[in-house]
């Protein structure tokens, strides 16, 4: 059913991605009608920005210097983010697949009716769980809540999950295991007060550029910076200590550092005794990880491991920040827990300048995982497997507890189940799994097996080309709502313009589907604010409590940190003050996981590590950023980074076309010969589709706890194909 019936070029001609350098009508330098104070639509910093609006079109931006997190600062994506609303590729009508030539335009009602009929047909024939829902973490809290409610109440399917499964879940799961709650422990304003900062597996300067300034302010205060990464990223270049870890060895490195801390007695014994549990197991585990043994595993010189401990151990204050580099592994949760061990052992958490934070990749990476959009979660961060939690939400929604499905499959497992023929229908929103899930040829095969696929998005992403129905949804600036940033601050998004043409606000599409599925009373909202009021009420008393928040308060206070359980509660920027953690016993937990190798390690056939990541000018699967000309120019196509030592051995020169092969497939692209990567490792950014997709070759092996795929390490080999296609192309400028 869902096979493509146009050529790649035909899809691009009709729906893009076509990089646009100016808005559809050209530059508009007139005085704007209004400046809308809102936030960037991209990463989890959610920078404040003002959009210039003229005649219901976004025509430009103006920095918003009063917003305290970024104070007007922006990355290139933020500067150019305004270019989407007036983009020629913007979907302005709903589309229904027509058998011979792509799509035809359809009325909103026709698209809804067809979708509802297919949902009912599939669920009638194969059972409720045969229809799955995939959400996204770039959407507002309101939509995340609504998606969860829609799946449980209207679809009644267990199989709802979201693309945060590819991003934040290892950190989230580890946070819950270690601290009993899933949130960064500190506001970012604590970073400049830290005297030592570990940046573990975070290409901070490219993926979270605004925090670069926080790190430099810390350095101005005398802080030392330790960067752990197989690549010398821009933040690593000037670091005080760089630990070039071999891919897939992160928790061994943490154990190695902790070994030295124990040996030198740089641990806070009273904190461990009074506020933690599980230390003994860990202590005996790390005893094995001598610097020499750790060097053997991790490839980090023993003296560097000792140096890291010497910086971290005696410091007065400290922050640990980590990201996908340690999380995108089949032991992602174990890696995160191992680094959290360093924080807990030092006792430096819950104090100004001391603590812990994760770098959230997606715009609402934090909020998107809190309100019931995940397969194992109900609103308020509640557990779908916990009878009291189920009962509470069933009563709140006014449904039978038994009607709420049990825990379902996670995002990658849903794709696997489609491939296996167990799931027959899919509705996705703001998710482009064909680009973002590993082993993309298998994803393509799975999509082709679907009996019905409905996609909601504002641009025609590559996965949506396979859809039977494409709903024209809303850009972030075409709706209002809230998002929760990487530090746990819930901020307010303002409506700048209304959706163009027949495009609808996402929540309106979901609600109309819910209504047509016979659940009118559960999906009758007039505006996003009503969903927010329901969301906050639903969260009351839960682990993630928003019940004291209102739009007005969030706006007035420039964001509120949860938990905020009452209207007069100021919010909670810093968690765990006075050593109080959220486990029932009030203690934090150490976890002792010995090092184990990645799911696929290098061998004689595939002797090199392959790792993937981002570039600063692109965002996630590129649905938005591959359409913005200025960003495309910055880094037009994927390049394969490799060290000159390796290149020389293989006779590869800068710009040569190479083929990178893994057990899943191969990718052909130009080589970029740089000294900034380990000689045994190749790196390709993942933002592109089709033949340029790095995820053609990555490994879909999952972490047993978080079910995150192992994007960051697999085994590969590389071979030279030939000289550069176009000799005049300069790379990486």
């Amino acid at each position: 059913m869902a096979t493509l019936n146009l050529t790649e070029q035909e899809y691009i001609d009709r729906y893009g991605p076509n990089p646009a350098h100016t808005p559809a009508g050209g530059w508009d330098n007139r005085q704007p009608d209004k400046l809308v104070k809102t936030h960037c639509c991209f990463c989890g910093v959610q920078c404040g920005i003002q959009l210039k609006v003229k005649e219901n079109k976004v025509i430009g931006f103006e920095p918003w210097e009063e917003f305290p997190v970024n104070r007007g600062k922006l990355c290139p994506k933020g500067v150019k983010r305004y270019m989407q609303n007036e983009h020629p590729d913007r979907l302005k009508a709903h589309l229904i697949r027509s058998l011979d030539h792509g799509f035809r335009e359809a009325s909103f009602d026709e698209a809804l009716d067809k979708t509802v009929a297919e949902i009912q047909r599939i669920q009638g024939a194969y059972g409720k769980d045969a229809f799955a829902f995939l959400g996204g973490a770039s959407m507002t809290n309101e939509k995340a809540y609504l998606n969860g409610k829609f799946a449980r109440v209207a679809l009644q399917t267990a199989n709802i999950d979201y693309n945060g499964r590819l991003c934040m879940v290892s950190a989230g799961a580890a946070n819950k295991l270690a601290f009993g709650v899933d949130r960064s422990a500190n506001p970012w304003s604590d970073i400049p007060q830290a005297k030592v900062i570990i940046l573990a597996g975070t290409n901070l300067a490219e993926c979270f550029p605004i925090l670069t300034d926080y790190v430099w302010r810390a350095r101005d205060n005398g802080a030392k910076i330790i960067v752990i990464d197989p690549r010398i990223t821009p933040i690593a270049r000037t670091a005080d200590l760089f630990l070039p870890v071999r891919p897939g060895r992160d928790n061994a490195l943490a154990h190695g550092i902790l070994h030295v801390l124990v040996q030198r007695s740089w641990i806070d014994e009273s904190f461990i005794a009074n506020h933690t549990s599980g230390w003994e197991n860990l202590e005996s585990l790390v005893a094995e990880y001598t610097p020499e043994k750790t060097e053997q595993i991790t490839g980090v010189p023993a003296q560097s491991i000792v140096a890291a401990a010497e910086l971290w151990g005696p410091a007065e204050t400290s922050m640990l920040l980590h990201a996908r580099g340690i999380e995108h592994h089949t032991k992602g949760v174990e890696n995160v827990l191992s680094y959290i061990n360093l924080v807990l052992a030092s006792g430096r958490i819950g104090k100004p300048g001391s603590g812990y934070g994760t770098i959230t990749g997606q715009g609402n990476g934090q909020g998107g995982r809190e309100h019931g959009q995940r397969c194992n979660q109900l609103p308020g961060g509640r557990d779908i497997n916990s009878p009291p939690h189920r009962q509470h939400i069933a009563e709140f929604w006014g449904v039978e507890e038994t009607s709420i499905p049990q825990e379902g499959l996670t995002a990658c497992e849903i794709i696997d189940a489609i491939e296996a023929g167990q799931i027959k229908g899919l509705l996705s929103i703001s998710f482009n799994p064909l680009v973002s899930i590993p082993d993309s040829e298998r994803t393509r095969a799975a999509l082709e097996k679907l009996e019905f696929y409905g996609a909601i998005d504002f641009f025609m992403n590559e996965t949506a080309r396979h859809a039977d129905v494409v709903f024209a949804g809303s850009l972030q600036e075409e709706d209002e709502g809230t998002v929760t940033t990487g530090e746990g601050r819930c901020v307010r998004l303002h409506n700048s313009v209304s959706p163009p043409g027949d495009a609808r606000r996402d929540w309106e599409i979901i609600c109309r589907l819910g209504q047509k599925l016979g659940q009118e009373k559960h999906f009758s909202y007039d505006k996003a604010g009503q969903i927010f009021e329901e969301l906050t009420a639903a969260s009351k008393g839960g682990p993630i409590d928003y019940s004291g928040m209102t739009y007005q308060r969030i706006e007035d206070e420039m964001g509120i940190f949860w938990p905020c359980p009452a209207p007069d509660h100021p919010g909670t920027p810093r968690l765990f003050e006075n050593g109080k953690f959220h486990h029932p016993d009030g203690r934090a937990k150490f976890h002792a996981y010995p090092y184990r190798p990645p799911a696929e390690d290098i061998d004689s056939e595939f002797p090199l590590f392959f790792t993937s990541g981002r570039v600063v000018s692109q965002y996630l699967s590129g649905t938005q950023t591959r359409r913005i000309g200025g960003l495309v120019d910055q880094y037009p196509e994927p390049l394969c980074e490799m060290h000159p030592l390796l290149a020389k051995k293989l006779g590869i020169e800068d710009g040569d076309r190479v083929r990178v092969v893994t057990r899943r497939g191969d990718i052909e692209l130009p080589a970029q010969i740089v000294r900034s990567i380990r000689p045994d490792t190749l790196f390709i950014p993942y933002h592109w589709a089709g033949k340029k997709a790095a995820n053609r070759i990555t490994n879909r092996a999952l972490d047993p706890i978080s079910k995150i795929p192992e994007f960051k390490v697999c085994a590969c080999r590389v071979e030279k194909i030939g000289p550069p296609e176009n000799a005049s192309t300069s790379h990486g400028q």
Partner: protein
Amino acid sequence: MPFLDKKAAIAGTVLAGLVALAVFTGSMGLRHFDPAVTLYTVGSILAAFAVGYRFTLWAQRPPSRMYFLRGLQILTRRGPRAIRQSQARKKSLPEATLANATGENFVAQNFIRRRSTYRWIMHLCLSGGCTLAFAITFPLVFGWVHFSSPPNDAEIYQVNVFGFAVDQFPVHGFKAFVMFNLLNFAAVLVLAGLGLAAYRRLTNAGERATQTFMEDLLPLILIFAVTVTGLMLTVSYKFLDGAGHHLMAIVHMWSVLVLLFYIPFGKLFHMFQRSCSLCVSLYKKAGADGARAHCVRCGDDYASQMHVDDLKTVLDQVGFNYRYAGTKGEVHYQDICPHCRRRLLALNQGTTLRR
């Protein structure tokens, strides 16, 4: 700098003298000179002095002088080896380059069209209208052209240029209509250009932020004053039986005089300065055909060797010394390409901080 530049003063005097001489001889010893326009003529002669003075002052500056010198050398096939070398290749005649540049830059003004079509139309209206108006008024005022009727036929006009009859046509014919209204057509063209310019200066956020009264607004106001008062003269005598004609004539004259005196001191002087662009066109062509300069750091071709060498001379003349000397050798900073200079800035700064 002395109060009065001697060379410039001589140039100004010569130019003013030439204009005066042209007025005297062109009007057949003032026989065809209309005393009513004496002030215009005196004003023009004084303005000619100012233009000559200002132009010479400017053209004597080392960088300008270098381009005029090289331009002349290229045209006369003399000068340094680089020029002669490039001539030897005979790729194109400098006269052709010059003709092409004149057509492109002065007539078609294509460089403005590439900057913005709007501004191109605006500028063509303004420059075309003004040029036409001056081409009509100067010869009339200076007495180079005058009209007379043959003694036997009052219905025929005869055009006399420098005292010679060149054409004649019926007083009420189409040609006469065009002839007598040409100035009004020019005025309409100028007004259209002024309208476009005013709209841009009022609405474009960038222009509003950067424009200044003396440079950007005053010339428009002056041209507007001249144009409107000129048109009012026609309106007055055609439709209002000459009402207010005398007053309007005085206002028109003074606005013209102010405009004439503004030319050498303000934005409008660019009409003379752009002559340098012709030399630059010749220079670039010769440079492209001649030896190239390669950056001593990265090896890239970044300019013509002649340009780099000439700039070294000009830098010395204007008092800069970007020379390096060390144990390894000597380098002139001009031999490093701009791209490398930017990278060297980061390298040097990083070195001081060990980053």
